[in-house]
């Protein structure tokens, strides 16, 4: 399998959209799209666990030659049963690291958070991105060291975003 050394964000998003997957961009990429200068080396997406969406997601993951980033080095591919039952899928793909999440924070699902998103046009694609306030909440709930480390930047960005400014947004 050809593994990309650096993640190609737009390529991964295009693949998911091409297969009609219902998903939200969350995590570090969501924070960056919302204006927070956060470096992340993977794309995190929260997917809808509706049965029809699992098939679309699996199609996209197969196109990307996705397999789990297994510490033991085993080659394990995602399948419908895993996508149905597991919460966390840390995958390597032809276009870099892709984290496919069934829930985030304290157990929030796609359905819980789809109303807290911003729609952004990124060139020819349009994606739903978790709004910054919700990114902060989910990172506070996750409460891992790596999440706590970025919270000051995220909170400060939210404060500066909410001030009137000449910010350029391309939202719906």
């Amino acid at each position, binding site marked *: 399998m050809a593994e990309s*050394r650096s993640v190609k964000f737009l390529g991964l998003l295009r693949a998911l959209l091409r297969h009609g997957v219902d998903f939200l961009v969350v995590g570090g990429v969501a924070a960056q799209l919302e204006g*927070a*200068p956060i470096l992340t080396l993977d794309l995190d997406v929260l997917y809808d666990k509706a049965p029809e969406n699992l098939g679309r997601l699996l199609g996209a993951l197969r196109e990307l030659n996705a397999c789990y980033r297994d510490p033991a080095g085993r080659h394990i591919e995602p399948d419908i049963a895993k996508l149905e039952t597991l919460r966390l899928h840390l995958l390597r793909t032809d276009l870099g690291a892709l984290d496919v999440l069934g829930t985030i924070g304290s157990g929030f699902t796609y359905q819980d958070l789809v109303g807290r998103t911003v729609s952004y046009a*990124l060139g020819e694609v349009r994606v739903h991105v978790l709004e910054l306030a919700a990114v902060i909440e989910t990172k506070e709930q996750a409460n891992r060291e790596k999440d706590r480390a970025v919270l*000051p*930047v995220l909170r*400060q960005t939210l404060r*500066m975003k909410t001030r009137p400014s*000449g910010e350029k947004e391309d939202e719906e």
Partner: protein
Amino acid sequence: MAQPLFGVPEPIPDPSPPAESPDGVDLTLIQWTLSLTPLERLELLQDWVDGLAELQRGRVEER
């Protein structure tokens, strides 16, 4: 007792906004990313990631 010819000058307030928040966050970086469009922000992130990958590969040429 000798008096100074001129009074002690008032400190001149710094007209520029602070570059850093009290907890050490670089405000100028946030202002910059907020001035970009979402696509430009994603491209910036992609540049950072690609640059890191280049560094890991040791292909960055000395300038």
